[in-house]
């Protein structure tokens, strides 16, 4: 069964460093998303991507964040100058239409 894969599963980084979270969506999907879940809180939408551009972004997704689809398979989330409050589980998802398939998540810890 096709699945969304995310790497790494865990990432520890020092405050102020840049991190890149990687995702391989399901191959025939058209819509791509990043969500995050801070420990103990609900899952929050960050950004959606369609037709090689951002289609919607939340207030959380400020200039510190960027997304790319550098080739036909990968979908990355870059966080520049990480802060302690960026520590969270980050989920990538992809969909053809309404049903989104999620990856296992990357747990980011900023120290």
């Amino acid at each position, binding site marked *: 069964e096709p699945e969304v894969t995310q790497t790494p599963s865990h990432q520890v980084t020092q405050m102020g460093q840049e991190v890149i979270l990687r995702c391989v969506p399901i191959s025939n999907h058209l*819509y791509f*998303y990043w969500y995050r879940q801070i420990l103990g809180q609900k*899952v929050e939408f960050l950004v*959606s991507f369609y037709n090689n551009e951002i289609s*919607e972004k939340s207030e959380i997704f400020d200039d510190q964040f960027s997304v790319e689809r550098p080739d036909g398979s990968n979908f990355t989330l870059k966080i520049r100058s990480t802060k302690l409050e960026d520590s969270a589980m980050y989920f990538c998802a992809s969909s053809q239409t*309404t049903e989104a398939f*999620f990856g296992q998540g990357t747990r980011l810890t900023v120290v």
Partner: protein
Amino acid sequence: AQSVTQLDSHVSVSEGTPVLLRCNYSSSYSPSLFWYVQHPNKGLQLLLKYTSAATLVKGINGFEAEFKKSETSFHLTKPSAHMSDAAEYFCVVINSGGSNYKLTFGKGTLLTVNP
């Protein structure tokens, strides 16, 4: 904008007894609703979805949910809980339109199953 409210942050049941996880939605038109499950240290897995077809939706692992427009509810049920059902459950609504199908999550309900 559409939203969902999960009425219980934590539900505890005994193995073999029924499960009820409550969710109410707010929408100006007929929504698409989902339940996702998250087991410890795992990703989000789709349990079931309602997309304006049959109001009683059956999902995986014996779960089902009924869409009730008059009550704006989409409660998740299972007749008999199993230990493996212990997880966090999220009620989710789609905000579709334009060029994406953004999901809005409820705060989640942690289900504990006691032996």
